[in-house]
C-alpha cells in the first residue's frame, strides 16, 4: 500500500508541469453580459423543444426529437426547470407552468420510482417553486408559505416515499412503487447518498406543514449512517438497509456518496444544527487524512484507508463549492483549479478520470452535461470574484454550444474523446447546469441577495421576513429560503417572549429578570435527545469543548494572502 502511494505521489507531482499558458486576453475577463444572454438563449432552445416534442414525458430525446419517461412519469423536466424560469426572470411562463402542473401531475400511478431522485427532483422542485411562487407573482392563498397547492403536491409526493423508510435500520430502500409501496423482493442495497440526501427537503416539508414525520425519518437515516461509519471515520458506497452491512466499501466524495456530505453541511446551515455540522467535520477530517492527495480526492478502502481507485469523478466537482460555503476557500480553489485542467483537456468532465494516467477511464468517458464544476465556480465566484471562474463559465458555454447543441435541444456527450452524442437530455441540464451558469454570469440576481432586500409577509401565524437571501440549493439546484422554515414553525410562545423582552426595552428600570445565562440553559434543553443519537451528541460535545474558541456553525475569516489568491495563484500553509 505504502509503495503504491509513493509512486502515486510522484505521478501526482507531474501535474505541476501540465499547466496551461497565460491569462492574456482573459485578464480582462469574459464579457459577462453577453455570456449571460447566451446562456438564456441556450435555456430556451432546450426548453421550447422539450415542450414542443417531449411534454408530458419526463425528458426530451434530442436526437430523435421525441420524449420518454425516465424517473417516473411526472413531466420531470418541466418540474425541474420551473424555478430556472424565475431565475431567468420569466414570470408569466412560471405562472403558466404552475397551473399546468397542478392539473396534470398525478402521483397515484403504478410506477417504480427512485426514492432519491423523486425526492431531489420532484419534492425539491415543487418545494422551491412553492416558496418562490409569491415572488413570481402567483396569487397565493392566505396561509402561504405554510400552505399552498404546490406544497400539497410536494407533500403528496413525499408521502409516497415514506414506505421506503420502514426498515429495521431506518435507512430507506432505493426504489418504491408509488401506488403499492415497497415491492416484495426489492433489493435492500442502497447507495449512501440514497440514504443521506433527504434532510433539506424533508425538514423543509416538516417545518412548513407542521408534520414532523418527514424530518424524523430523514434524521433517523442520517444517524444510522453515522453509526455505521468505519473505525477510521469513513463511509462506503452501498449498504444493505436491513442488515447494515456495507456492500461496496469504496470511500470517497463522489458517486454514491456525494450528496450525503453535501446535505450534512446544508442541513446544518438550514437548521442551524450543530450536530449535523460536527458529523460533517469528523468526516471532513477523515477525508483529508485518507483520500486527499495533492488537492485531488481519491477513492480508498473504507476500513483500511488504502487507495482503491486513483480517479477523479465528474460528480466530485461539487466539493469545492461545498468547502467555500463553510469558509475553506483556499482549499476549495486549489482543488477547483485541478478539476478545471481536466475540463480544458476534453471540453467537459468525463465521468471518471484516471489521475496518474491523465486520461479517461474505459466505459466512463461520457459527459451528460453535468453541473457540478459550474456549481462550484458559482460559489467560489461569490467568495473570490476571481476572473478564472468566469473563464470556466465561458469555456462551459462554448463547449456545450459547440459540441452538444443539436436541432432539438442539447444532447448528452456519450464519449468525450470523440464528442459522439447520445439521445438524451437529462432534466438536470435545465434545472442545474443552465441555472448555475446563468447565476455565475448574473451577480445581481435575486438569488445572490445578501440580505439588502427582503419581503415582509403577514400570515395567520404572525409576521414573517422572507426572501432575505441565503438560499440553500438542494442537490438538484432547487433553492430553499431558510427564512421560510422559521416562518411557519414560529411558535406563539416565542412571539410572546419577544414581546416581553421588548417591554423591557421601553422601561427605564430594568427588572433584570432576563438574564442571559438562564436563556442559554433553556436553549440547550430545547432539543430532544433520543437514545440512538446519544453517541453522536457526545462526539459533538467533545468537539465543542476542544474547539471552544468558536462555534461549529461558523466560517474562519479569510487569511491575509487570500487577497492575492486570484488568477490561479495559490498559497501554502495558511496558518
Amino acid at each position, binding site marked *: 500500500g505504502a509503495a503504491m502511494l509513493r509512486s502515486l505521489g510522484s505521478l501526482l507531482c507531474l501535474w505541476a508541469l501540465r499547466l496551461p499558458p497565460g491569462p492574456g486576453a482573459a485578464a480582462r475577463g469574459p464579457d459577462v453580459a453577453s455570456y449571460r444572454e447566451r446562456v438564456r438563449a441556450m435555456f430556451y432552445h432546450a426548453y421550447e423543444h422539450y415542450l414542443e416534442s417531449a411534454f408530458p414525458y419526463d425528458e426530451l430525446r434530442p436526437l430523435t426529437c421525441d420524449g420518454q419517461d425516465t424517473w417516473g412519469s411526472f413531466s420531470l423536466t418541466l418540474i425541474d426547470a420551473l424555478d430556472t424560469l424565475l431565475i431567468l426572470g420569466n414570470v408569466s411562463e412560471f405562472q403558466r407552468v404552475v397551473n399546468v402542473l397542478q392539473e396534470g401531475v398525478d402521483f397515484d400511478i403504478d410506477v417504480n420510482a427512485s426514492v432519491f431522485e423523486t425526492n431531489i427532483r420532484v419534492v425539491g422542485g415543487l418545494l422551491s417553486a412553492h416558496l418562490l411562487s409569491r415572488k413570481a407573482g402567483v396569487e397565493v392563498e392566505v396561509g402561504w408559505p405554510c400552505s399552498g397547492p404546490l406544497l400539497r403536491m410536494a407533500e403528496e409526493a413525499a408521502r409516497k416515499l415514506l414506505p421506503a423508510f420502514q426498515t429495521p435500520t431506518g435507512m430507506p430502500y432505493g426504489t418504491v412503487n408509488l401506488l403499492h409501496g415497497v415491492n416484495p423482493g426489492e433489493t435492500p442495497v442502497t447507495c449512501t447518498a440514497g440514504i443521506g440526501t433527504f434532510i433539506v427537503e424533508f425538514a423543509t416539508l416538516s417545518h412548513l406543514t407542521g408534520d414532523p414525520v418527514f424530518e424524523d425519518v430523514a434524521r433517523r437515516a442520517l444517524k444510522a449512517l453515522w453509526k455505521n461509519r468505519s473505525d477510521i471515520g469513513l463511509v462506503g458506497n452501498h449498504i444493505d438497509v436491513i442488515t447494515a452491512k456495507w456492500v461496496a466499501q469504496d470511500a470517497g466524495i463522489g458517486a454514491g456518496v456525494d450528496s450525503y456530505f453535501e446535505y450534512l453541511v446544508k442541513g446544518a446551515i438550514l437548521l442551524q444544527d450543530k450536530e449535523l455540522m460536527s458529523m460533517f467535520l469528523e468526516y471532513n477530517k477523515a477525508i483529508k487524512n485518507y483520500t486527499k492527495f495533492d488537492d485531488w480526492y481519491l477513492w480508498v478502502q473504507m476500513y483500511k484507508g488504502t487507495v482503491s481507485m486513483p480517479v477523479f469523478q465528474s460528480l466530485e466537482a461539487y466539493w469545492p463549492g461545498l468547502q467555500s460555503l463553510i469558509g475553506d476557500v483556499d482549499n476549495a480553489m486549489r482543488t477547483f483549479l485541478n478539476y478545471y485542467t481536466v475540463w480544458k483537456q476534453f471540453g467537459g468532465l468525463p465521468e471518471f478520470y484516471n489521475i496518474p494516467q491523465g486520461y479517461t477511464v474505459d466505459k466512463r468517458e461520457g459527459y451528460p452535461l453535468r453541473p457540478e464544476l459550474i456549481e462550484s465556480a458559482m460559489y467560489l465566484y461569490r467568495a473570490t470574484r476571481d476572473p478564472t471562474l468566469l473563464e470556466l463559465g465561458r469555456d462551459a458555454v462554448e463547449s456545450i454550444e459547440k459540441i452538444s447543441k443539436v436541432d432539438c435541444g442539447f444532447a448528452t456527450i456519450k464519449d468525450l474523446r470523440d464528442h459522439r452524442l447520445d439521445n438524451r437530455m437529462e432534466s438536470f441540464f435545465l434545472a442545474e447546469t443552465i441555472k448555475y451558469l446563468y447565476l455565475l454570469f448574473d451577480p445581481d440576481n435575486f438569488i445572490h441577495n445578501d440580505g439588502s432586500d427582503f419581503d415582509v409577509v403577514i400570515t395567520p401565524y404572525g409576521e414573517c421576513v422572507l426572501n432575505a437571501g441565503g438560499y440553500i440549493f438542494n442537490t438538484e439546484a432547487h433553492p430553499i429560503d431558510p427564512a421560510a422554515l422559521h416562518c411557519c414553525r414560529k411558535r406563539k410562545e*416565542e412571539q410572546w417572549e419577544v414581546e416581553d423582552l421588548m417591554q423591557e426595552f421601553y422601561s427605564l428600570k*430594568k427588572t433584570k429578570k432576563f438574564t*442571559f445565562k438562564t436563556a442559554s440553559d433553556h436553549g440547550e434543553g430545547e432539543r430532544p435527545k433520543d437514545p440512538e443519537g446519544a453517541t453522536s451528541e457526545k462526539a459533538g460535545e467533545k468537539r465543542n469543548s476542544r474547539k471552544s474558541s468558536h462555534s461549529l456553525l461558523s466560517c474562519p475569516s479569510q487569511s491575509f494572502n487570500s*487577497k492575492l489568491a486570484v488568477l490561479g495563484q495559490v498559497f501554502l500553509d495558511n496558518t
Partner: protein
Amino acid sequence: SRAKDVTMPAKLPVSFFSPRSPVIDLFRGQLDSADQLRQDSEIVLYFFYAPWCGQSIAAREEIERVASALSDRVLFVAVNCWWNQGKCRKQKHFFYFPVIHLYHQSFGPIEYKGPMSAVYIEKFVRRVMTPLLYISSRSKLLDFLSNYEPGVLGYFEFNASPQPPGYLTFFTSALHSLKKDYLGTIRFGVITDKRVAEEISLERSGSVYLHRHANTSLVYPKDMMNYTAENICRWALENREMLIRWLRPHGGKSLLLNNELKKGPALLIFIPYNPLAEIHPLLDEITKVALEYHKCNKSQAAEPDLQHLDTDSPASDSSVTDAHTKLAETFSIRKSPCCNTVVLPQWHSISRTHNVCELCVNQTLGVKPDKVLVPHCNFLEIEAALDSFYLQEHTFFQVISSTIECSNFLSFYSPFSYYTACCRTVNRHFLSFIGSEKTIFQTPKVAFSSHGKKDNSQFSIPHIEDRNCFIPDLNISNINITGLSCRTNKTLNLYLLDSNLFWIYAERLGASRSAHLKEFAAIVDMKEEVHYVLDQNQSLVGPTLENFIKNFSILYSPLKRHLVDDPSVDFQEQRVITEVTTNSFHETVFLSEKSVLLLYYAQWCGFCASLNHVFIQLARLLPPDNFTVARIDVTRNDLPWEFMADHLPTILFFPHQRKEQSVKFPEDFPVNLPNLLKFILHHSSLSSSEPCTKECRHKESVLQQGHISHLEREIQKLRSEISALHQAHDQLEAQLSEARREEQRLQQQKHTLEKQHKTLQLHSEQLQATYDQKNQELLEMAEKLQELADASENLLKENALLRILVASREGKLQSKDEIKEALQSEQTLSEVKDISPSTAPATSEESRIDNTDTRETEQSTANRTE
C-alpha cells in the same frame, strides 16, 4: 426501444479562422501539410487549437492581430488538434489548448507560454526572429547594459571567416534561452567591433560575457564548462542577477506569488506595459531606483553603465552615503523603541496646525518610565496605539496650542497602558514624499468625543518624553537609497506587474478603481500580514518610490498598514441594517449616539447568509432612536487589528456611552431573536440606581413615547395578523361550505345511485326469469327433438326390416326366375317396393339439419338473455 441506442458522431470540423485571415487554418488537423509548410518559411508559428475551447477562441483574435503585423516575415499555421480523424490529434497529446509552437528554421519547437495577448506574442515572435541584438557602437552597448534585465554578450570577430568559430553555438544558445525562459528575460547581444568589446574588457573573439549590476560581471568559463548552447544558457540562467523581476502569473494553478512573497517583504509595482514600445521612461526610472537600492559595493559605481544612468545625478552623491548611513543609525539608536512617528495627511483637521506627531507607548499608567529603561514594546502595541491615536485624534484639536504639544491618552483596549503624542509642524516639502498613510477615517468632527472619560484633567499627567520628542524622521530624506538593501534588515524584493494584465491584484491591495492611470505600488509583508500602499494621490515616479522604500526600511516606519475598503457600498441607500465599511466604521460604531449591534459577516459564508432574516427582524423591532443594527463584510473591508474577528458570523455589541467596552455574543448560543434581545438587554446601559431627576423624567417620557409607538406598530401588526386570520377563516369557511355542498351532492348522488341499483336489480331479476323461461323452452325443444330422433330411428329400423324383406323377396324372386316370364304381372309390384326404402333416409337427414339450426338459434337467444 431503438431510439435509446441512437447516437450521433461529432459534427465535422469547419474552419476556425476566416478565409481572409493571414493565418493558414488546417481545420482537419493535417499535421503532415503543416510540416510541409514549414519548409517555406524561416520562422513559423503553429497555433494548435480545439474548436470548442474558450481559450482558443479568445486567443484567435490575438493571433490574427500578430499575424497581420508579421505575416510578411513569419508563417502562421493554425492546426485543429482535436478532430479525432486528423493527424495532429493522433500524434500529439495536449493537456490544454491552445498551444503555440515556434520554429526558427530547424530549431524548435519553442513553446510560447506567456500571456495570450497580441503584444506579448508579437514581442516573443520578434525575439525568435532575431535572438541576438547587434551591438555596433559604444552607445548601443551602454543602452544594452543599462537595461534592468540580465544581458549576455558575445564577442565575435567576423573579419577572419564568414562565420567565426562558436558563433553558431552562441546563436543557438540565445534561441535555447527562449525555450527555458519564456518571458525572455535574458537578452543576448553580439559585438563584432574590437573597440566596443574592449569597453567590457573582452579581448578574445568567442568570449561570452554576462553583465551584472550589483555583483561583478562574469565571463563564460570555457575551460571549465563545455562550450555548448545548453551550457551557455544554463550558466546565464544560474548566474543572472534579478534586481527587479516581472511577475506574470500564467493563469493556471501556480505558487509563483507564494514562493516570491515568502522570501520576504516585497514591493509590487504595477505599471501599464507595452512590450513592443521602444522606450519605457517609467520603467527606466524604476530601474534606476532598483539599481541604486541594490548598489552595495562602492566599486561598482565606476562601471560604465551606472555612469551612464547617473548622468543626471551629482557625482558627489555616493561620497556622502557613509555620512547618511551613520546619521540614520544614530537616529535609530536614539529613538525609543516604543515610539512611532505619524504624519498627518494634509486634509486633516489637526494638520491645519500640526502635521507630524510622535507617538510613544507607555506600559504602566502613572509610572514615569526612565528614559534608559524604556520597556520593550511589541509591534502590535504600536499598531494598536496608532489606531487608537487615529480614533482619538480629534481630541488633540482641543489641546493643541503651541508649536510642540504633547498629550497622554489611555489606550482603548489595554487598561494598563497609555500613550503620549507630541505634535508639531514641519514645513511642507518634507511631507511631499510621505503620503502612504492615507487615513482610513474621514475627517472627524470637531465635537468632543464621548468615548473618553469626561474628566479631562486626568490626562494632564506630565508628559514623559517632553523635550525628547524631537522628530528624527525630519532627516529621513537624508537617508540615501543607494545600497539601502544591504544596510537594512528589512530588505525588499522588487517586482513589476503589467497593470494591463494583472490590475486585479492592485485592486485587491486597495488601488482605487476610479483611477485612470493604472499605476500603483504596494509593499506586501506576508509574514506580518500587512501591506502598505504608496499614496495614490502622488504620481508613481522615482523619488516617491525611493521615499516609499526608505520609509519602509527605517526602524520605526511611519508607514501605516493599509486597510482595504469596499467602494461598492452605497451609503445613500437607506437600509434596515446599516452597512459598515472600513471608512465608515469609526463613525457608525463609535461616534454614533446609539448602541450598536455589529455583525461581522461574509457573503459566501453559509452560516451568515442564513441568519439574514433574524437580523432584519431584530432591526425592525429595536427602537431605532437608541439602537443601530449594523454589519460589515470583512472580506471586502479590513479593520484595525483589535477589531478583527477570526470567525464569521461574529456579533459584537457596543453599548451607548461605553463603546470601548464592546461585548461579544457568546458563540455557543443559538442565534435567534429572543437570545439576541436578551443579549442586548443584558449589556445595555443601566441607569436604574440614579435618583430620578428632571432629566430622567424627560428620558422616561421619551422612552414611553418610544414604547407607545412600538406598541402602535405591534397593534398594527396584530391587526394585519387578525385580518390575515379573518381571511384564512373566510377561506376555511368557504372551503367548509364547499365541502358541505360537496357532501350533500354526494349524498344525493348516493341516493340516485341506490335507486339505479334497485332498478338494475329488478331488471336483472326479470332477465333471470326470462332466462329460466327460455331455458325451459329449450328443454322442451330438446325433448321434442329427442322424440323426433326416436321416430326417425324407428323409421330407420322399419327401413332395415323392409330391406331384409326386400332381400328375402329378391331371393325368392331369383329362385322363381324360371317362373318369371310366366309371372310378368308380379314383377311390376316388386319395382314399386324398391323405390320406397330410398326415400326414407333422405327425410331423416333433413330433420338432422333442422336440428342443428334450432340449436344455433337457441344459442343466440341465450346470448341475448345473458
